[in-house]
Protein backbone atom coordinates (compact mmCIF):
# COMPACT_ATOMS: atom_id res chain seq x y z
CA UNK A 1 0.00 0.00 0.00
CA UNK A 2 1.39 3.40 -0.98
CA UNK A 3 0.15 6.57 0.68
CA UNK A 4 0.69 10.19 -0.34
CA UNK A 5 0.47 12.86 2.39
CA UNK A 6 -0.18 16.44 1.26
CA UNK A 7 -0.07 19.41 3.65
CA UNK A 8 1.61 22.81 3.42
CA UNK A 9 2.96 22.35 6.98
CA UNK A 10 6.26 20.59 6.28
CA UNK A 11 7.05 19.65 9.86
CA UNK A 12 3.67 17.99 10.21
CA UNK A 13 3.73 15.99 7.02
CA UNK A 14 7.37 14.85 7.38
CA UNK A 15 6.77 13.56 10.92
CA UNK A 16 3.49 11.92 9.98
CA UNK A 17 5.22 10.09 7.13
CA UNK A 18 7.87 8.83 9.53
CA UNK A 19 5.28 7.61 12.05
CA UNK A 20 3.34 5.81 9.34
CA UNK A 21 6.55 4.22 8.14
CA UNK A 22 7.17 2.91 11.68
CA UNK A 23 3.74 1.27 11.33
CA UNK A 24 4.73 -0.36 8.02
CA UNK A 25 2.77 2.07 5.87
CA UNK A 26 4.84 3.31 2.93
CA UNK A 27 4.19 7.08 2.89
CA UNK A 28 5.56 9.89 0.70
CA UNK A 29 4.79 13.54 1.30
CA UNK A 30 4.23 16.73 -0.67
CA UNK A 31 3.80 20.34 0.42
CA UNK A 32 1.39 21.47 -2.27
CA UNK A 33 -1.16 20.26 -4.78
CA UNK A 34 1.29 20.94 -7.62
CA UNK A 35 4.01 18.83 -6.02
CA UNK A 36 1.50 16.06 -5.29
CA UNK A 37 0.36 15.93 -8.92
CA UNK A 38 3.99 15.76 -10.11
CA UNK A 39 4.69 12.86 -7.75
CA UNK A 40 1.47 11.04 -8.67
CA UNK A 41 2.41 11.29 -12.34
CA UNK A 42 5.52 9.19 -11.64
CA UNK A 43 4.25 6.78 -9.01
CA UNK A 44 0.96 5.03 -8.28
CA UNK A 45 -0.52 5.83 -4.87
CA UNK A 46 -3.39 3.82 -3.41
CA UNK A 47 -4.50 6.52 -1.00
CA UNK A 48 -3.89 10.22 -0.39
CA UNK A 49 -4.22 12.05 2.92
CA UNK A 50 -4.96 15.68 2.06
CA UNK A 51 -5.12 18.85 4.11
CA UNK A 52 -8.37 20.64 3.30
CA UNK A 53 -6.96 24.17 3.31
CA UNK A 54 -3.79 24.83 1.33
CA UNK A 55 -2.68 27.83 -0.74
CA UNK A 56 -3.37 27.65 -4.49
CA UNK A 57 -5.13 24.28 -4.54
CA UNK A 58 -7.21 23.02 -1.63
CA UNK A 59 -7.72 19.37 -0.70
CA UNK A 60 -11.00 18.94 -2.59
CA UNK A 61 -9.59 20.52 -5.76
CA UNK A 62 -6.53 18.29 -5.49
CA UNK A 63 -8.72 15.22 -5.11
CA UNK A 64 -10.45 16.02 -8.41
CA UNK A 65 -7.11 16.39 -10.20
CA UNK A 66 -5.61 13.23 -8.67
CA UNK A 67 -8.68 11.21 -9.61
CA UNK A 68 -8.17 12.18 -13.25
CA UNK A 69 -4.88 10.27 -13.16
CA UNK A 70 -5.89 7.56 -10.68
CA UNK A 71 -9.69 7.06 -10.59
CA UNK A 72 -9.40 4.30 -7.97
CA UNK A 73 -7.36 6.37 -5.52
CA UNK A 74 -8.89 6.66 -2.02
CA UNK A 75 -8.80 9.80 0.08
CA UNK A 76 -8.70 10.93 3.68
CA UNK A 77 -9.04 14.64 4.48
CA UNK A 78 -7.47 16.51 7.40
CA UNK A 79 -8.62 19.87 8.69
CA UNK A 80 -7.67 22.34 11.39
CA UNK A 81 -11.26 23.56 11.78
CA UNK A 82 -12.63 22.35 15.06
CA UNK A 83 -16.33 23.04 15.46
CA UNK A 84 -18.92 20.33 15.09
CA UNK A 85 -20.63 22.38 12.37
CA UNK A 86 -17.36 22.59 10.47
CA UNK A 87 -16.91 18.84 10.83
CA UNK A 88 -20.39 18.15 9.48
CA UNK A 89 -19.97 20.62 6.64
CA UNK A 90 -16.55 19.26 5.77
CA UNK A 91 -17.60 15.64 5.97
CA UNK A 92 -20.50 16.41 3.67
CA UNK A 93 -18.17 18.16 1.23
CA UNK A 94 -15.71 15.27 1.39
CA UNK A 95 -18.48 12.91 0.37
CA UNK A 96 -17.89 9.28 1.18
CA UNK A 97 -14.24 9.88 2.01
CA UNK A 98 -12.90 10.05 5.54
CA UNK A 99 -12.48 13.33 7.34
CA UNK A 100 -10.32 13.90 10.43
CA UNK A 101 -9.68 16.96 12.61
CA UNK A 102 -6.13 17.95 13.56
CA UNK A 103 -4.34 17.06 15.77
CA UNK A 104 -4.88 13.57 14.48
CA UNK A 105 -4.80 10.42 16.56
CA UNK A 106 -2.30 8.20 14.74
CA UNK A 107 -4.17 4.99 15.57
CA UNK A 108 -7.37 6.48 14.17
CA UNK A 109 -5.58 7.56 11.00
CA UNK A 110 -3.98 4.14 10.54
CA UNK A 111 -7.35 2.44 11.10
CA UNK A 112 -8.98 4.69 8.50
CA UNK A 113 -6.15 4.08 6.03
CA UNK A 114 -6.60 0.31 6.37
CA UNK A 115 -10.40 0.57 6.26
CA UNK A 116 -10.27 2.78 3.17
CA UNK A 117 -7.84 0.46 1.44
CA UNK A 118 -9.93 -2.61 2.32
CA UNK A 119 -13.08 -0.88 1.05
CA UNK A 120 -11.29 -0.08 -2.18
CA UNK A 121 -10.25 -3.66 -2.69
CA UNK A 122 -13.72 -5.01 -1.93
Amino acid at each position, binding site marked *: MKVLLVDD*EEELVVTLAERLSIRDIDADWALSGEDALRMAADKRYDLAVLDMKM*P*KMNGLQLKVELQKQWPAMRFIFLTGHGSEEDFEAGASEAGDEYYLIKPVNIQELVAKIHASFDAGEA
Partner: protein
Amino acid sequence: MEPLNDTLDAACLQVFGKISAAVSHDLKNVLAIVNENAGLLDDLALRAAKGGEIPLDRLNVATSRMLKQVKRGDAVLKNLNRFAHTTDAPLLQGNVAETVALMVDLAGRQAAMRETVITVAPDAAMISTCLVYLESFVYLLLRHALEVLPRKESVEIAVAAEGETVCIRLVNPAGLPLIQDDVFPGAQEKALMERLKIDLQALPGTVALRLPASLA
Protein backbone atom coordinates in the same frame (compact mmCIF):
# COMPACT_ATOMS: atom_id res chain seq x y z
CA MET B 1 -30.73 52.67 9.46
CA GLU B 2 -28.89 51.17 12.43
CA PRO B 3 -27.55 53.52 15.07
CA LEU B 4 -23.85 54.20 14.47
CA ASN B 5 -22.71 52.42 17.62
CA ASP B 6 -24.51 49.21 16.62
CA THR B 7 -22.76 49.22 13.26
CA LEU B 8 -19.40 49.92 14.88
CA ASP B 9 -19.93 47.08 17.32
CA ALA B 10 -20.92 44.76 14.49
CA ALA B 11 -17.78 45.69 12.57
CA CYS B 12 -15.52 45.02 15.55
CA LEU B 13 -17.32 41.77 16.30
CA GLN B 14 -16.87 40.63 12.71
CA VAL B 15 -13.17 41.42 12.84
CA PHE B 16 -12.75 39.75 16.20
CA GLY B 17 -14.53 36.65 14.87
CA LYS B 18 -12.36 36.43 11.77
CA ILE B 19 -9.16 36.94 13.74
CA SER B 20 -10.20 34.34 16.32
CA ALA B 21 -10.93 31.83 13.55
CA ALA B 22 -7.56 32.45 11.90
CA VAL B 23 -5.69 32.20 15.19
CA SER B 24 -7.46 28.99 16.14
CA HIS B 25 -6.59 27.49 12.76
CA ASP B 26 -2.92 28.44 13.19
CA LEU B 27 -2.84 27.03 16.70
CA LYS B 28 -4.46 23.78 15.50
CA ASN B 29 -1.55 23.35 13.11
CA VAL B 30 0.93 24.14 15.89
CA LEU B 31 -0.69 21.53 18.11
CA ALA B 32 -0.80 19.02 15.27
CA ILE B 33 2.95 19.34 14.72
CA VAL B 34 3.70 19.10 18.44
CA ASN B 35 1.32 16.11 18.62
CA GLU B 36 3.10 14.26 15.83
CA ASN B 37 6.58 14.94 17.16
CA ALA B 38 5.62 13.98 20.71
CA GLY B 39 4.06 10.84 19.23
CA LEU B 40 7.27 10.15 17.33
CA LEU B 41 9.26 10.38 20.57
CA ASP B 42 6.76 7.92 22.04
CA ASP B 43 7.26 5.56 19.11
CA LEU B 44 11.04 5.76 19.46
CA ALA B 45 10.83 5.19 23.23
CA LEU B 46 8.71 2.09 22.59
CA ARG B 47 11.30 0.87 20.15
CA ALA B 48 14.04 1.45 22.77
CA ALA B 49 12.01 -0.46 25.36
CA LYS B 50 12.00 -3.42 22.97
CA GLY B 51 15.77 -3.21 22.65
CA GLY B 52 15.94 -1.13 19.50
CA GLU B 53 18.36 1.71 18.94
CA ILE B 54 17.31 5.37 18.84
CA PRO B 55 19.43 7.60 16.62
CA LEU B 56 20.16 10.75 18.60
CA ASP B 57 19.69 12.99 15.58
CA ARG B 58 16.06 11.90 15.29
CA LEU B 59 15.47 12.84 18.90
CA ASN B 60 17.09 16.23 18.32
CA VAL B 61 15.02 16.88 15.21
CA ALA B 62 11.76 16.03 16.98
CA THR B 63 12.52 18.17 20.03
CA SER B 64 13.72 21.14 17.99
CA ARG B 65 10.53 20.98 15.87
CA MET B 66 8.43 21.10 19.03
CA LEU B 67 10.37 24.04 20.42
CA LYS B 68 9.99 25.88 17.13
CA GLN B 69 6.22 25.36 17.22
CA VAL B 70 6.04 26.59 20.81
CA LYS B 71 7.70 29.82 19.65
CA ARG B 72 5.32 30.03 16.70
CA GLY B 73 2.27 29.51 18.91
CA ASP B 74 3.56 32.06 21.39
CA ALA B 75 3.97 34.65 18.62
CA VAL B 76 0.42 34.00 17.39
CA LEU B 77 -0.99 34.40 20.90
CA LYS B 78 1.07 37.54 21.57
CA ASN B 79 -0.54 39.18 18.54
CA LEU B 80 -4.01 38.10 19.63
CA ASN B 81 -3.33 39.38 23.12
CA ARG B 82 -2.13 42.75 21.80
CA PHE B 83 -5.24 43.09 19.68
CA ALA B 84 -7.51 42.07 22.56
CA HIS B 85 -5.97 44.69 24.86
CA THR B 86 -6.73 47.53 22.48
CA THR B 87 -10.29 47.28 23.79
CA ASP B 88 -9.04 48.26 27.28
CA ALA B 89 -9.81 51.95 26.77
CA PRO B 90 -11.88 54.00 24.31
CA LEU B 91 -8.86 56.17 23.40
CA LEU B 92 -5.33 54.85 23.27
CA GLN B 93 -2.04 56.15 21.98
CA GLY B 94 -0.06 53.93 19.66
CA ASN B 95 2.55 53.78 16.94
CA VAL B 96 0.65 53.71 13.65
CA ALA B 97 3.09 51.53 11.70
CA GLU B 98 3.22 48.99 14.54
CA THR B 99 -0.59 48.97 14.72
CA VAL B 100 -0.83 48.35 10.98
CA ALA B 101 1.92 45.70 11.18
CA LEU B 102 -0.06 43.89 13.88
CA MET B 103 -3.11 43.71 11.62
CA VAL B 104 -0.91 42.53 8.73
CA ASP B 105 0.35 39.72 10.99
CA LEU B 106 -3.20 38.84 12.04
CA ALA B 107 -4.22 38.69 8.37
CA GLY B 108 -1.13 36.59 7.67
CA ARG B 109 -2.90 33.32 6.98
CA GLN B 110 -5.22 34.91 4.43
CA ALA B 111 -2.24 36.60 2.78
CA ALA B 112 -0.38 33.27 2.65
CA MET B 113 -3.41 31.54 1.09
CA ARG B 114 -3.40 34.23 -1.63
CA GLU B 115 0.41 34.08 -1.85
CA THR B 116 0.43 37.83 -1.33
CA VAL B 117 3.32 39.58 0.43
CA ILE B 118 2.42 42.58 2.58
CA THR B 119 5.19 44.74 4.04
CA VAL B 120 4.98 47.67 6.43
CA ALA B 121 7.77 50.21 6.62
CA PRO B 122 8.65 51.21 10.19
CA ASP B 123 7.80 54.79 11.12
CA ALA B 124 7.70 56.83 14.28
CA ALA B 125 4.29 58.45 13.64
CA MET B 126 2.02 58.17 16.68
CA ILE B 127 -1.76 58.39 16.95
CA SER B 128 -4.22 58.91 19.77
CA THR B 129 -7.49 57.36 18.70
CA CYS B 130 -9.89 54.49 19.24
CA LEU B 131 -7.26 51.92 18.38
CA VAL B 132 -9.60 48.94 18.18
CA TYR B 133 -11.70 50.76 15.55
CA LEU B 134 -8.59 51.69 13.59
CA GLU B 135 -7.31 48.12 13.76
CA SER B 136 -10.70 46.81 12.66
CA PHE B 137 -10.80 49.17 9.70
CA VAL B 138 -7.26 48.31 8.62
CA TYR B 139 -8.02 44.59 8.95
CA LEU B 140 -11.20 44.86 6.86
CA LEU B 141 -9.30 46.86 4.24
CA LEU B 142 -6.49 44.28 4.13
CA ARG B 143 -8.96 41.38 3.80
CA HIS B 144 -10.76 43.20 0.99
CA ALA B 145 -7.50 44.04 -0.83
CA LEU B 146 -6.44 40.38 -0.59
CA GLU B 147 -9.68 39.37 -2.30
CA VAL B 148 -9.45 42.00 -5.01
CA LEU B 149 -5.80 41.50 -5.95
CA PRO B 150 -4.83 38.48 -8.06
CA ARG B 151 -2.70 35.83 -6.38
CA LYS B 152 1.06 36.31 -5.95
CA GLU B 153 0.92 40.06 -5.67
CA SER B 154 2.43 42.41 -3.11
CA VAL B 155 1.29 45.36 -1.04
CA GLU B 156 3.68 47.89 0.43
CA ILE B 157 2.38 49.97 3.32
CA ALA B 158 3.95 53.20 4.47
CA VAL B 159 2.93 55.55 7.26
CA ALA B 160 3.74 59.23 7.47
CA ALA B 161 2.89 62.06 9.82
CA GLU B 162 1.48 65.05 7.90
CA GLY B 163 1.11 67.83 10.41
CA GLU B 164 -1.95 67.05 12.52
CA THR B 165 -2.92 64.07 10.38
CA VAL B 166 -1.46 60.66 9.81
CA CYS B 167 -1.38 59.07 6.38
CA ILE B 168 -1.43 55.29 5.87
CA ARG B 169 -0.67 54.49 2.24
CA LEU B 170 -1.10 51.06 0.64
CA VAL B 171 0.59 50.53 -2.71
CA ASN B 172 0.56 47.65 -5.17
CA PRO B 173 3.75 48.07 -7.22
CA ALA B 174 2.05 46.67 -10.32
CA GLY B 175 -0.59 49.41 -10.12
CA LEU B 176 -3.48 46.98 -9.65
CA PRO B 177 -6.61 48.18 -7.82
CA LEU B 178 -6.69 47.46 -4.11
CA ILE B 179 -10.37 48.09 -3.59
CA GLN B 180 -13.56 47.52 -5.50
CA ASP B 181 -15.43 50.85 -5.39
CA ASP B 182 -18.93 49.39 -5.28
CA VAL B 183 -18.03 47.04 -2.42
CA PHE B 184 -15.59 48.89 -0.18
CA PRO B 185 -16.24 50.80 1.96
CA GLY B 186 -19.48 49.05 2.97
CA ALA B 187 -21.77 50.10 5.83
CA GLN B 188 -19.45 48.86 8.58
CA GLU B 189 -16.36 50.40 7.04
CA LYS B 190 -18.19 53.71 6.53
CA ALA B 191 -19.23 53.71 10.18
CA LEU B 192 -15.60 53.16 11.22
CA MET B 193 -14.41 55.89 8.85
CA GLU B 194 -16.97 58.33 10.26
CA ARG B 195 -15.98 57.55 13.84
CA LEU B 196 -12.24 57.79 13.16
CA LYS B 197 -12.62 60.73 10.73
CA ILE B 198 -10.83 58.77 8.00
CA ASP B 199 -10.57 60.30 4.56
CA LEU B 200 -10.00 57.54 2.00
CA GLN B 201 -8.53 58.20 -1.42
CA ALA B 202 -8.28 55.35 -3.91
CA LEU B 203 -6.34 55.49 -7.17
CA PRO B 204 -5.20 52.56 -9.34
CA GLY B 205 -2.61 50.72 -7.27
CA THR B 206 -2.88 53.01 -4.25
CA VAL B 207 -5.14 53.55 -1.28
CA ALA B 208 -4.40 56.43 1.08
CA LEU B 209 -6.07 56.83 4.47
CA ARG B 210 -5.77 60.17 6.22
CA LEU B 211 -6.98 60.57 9.77
CA PRO B 212 -6.40 62.92 12.71
CA ALA B 213 -3.31 62.17 14.78
CA SER B 214 -5.40 62.95 17.83
CA LEU B 215 -9.08 62.13 18.10
CA ALA B 216 -9.43 63.66 21.57
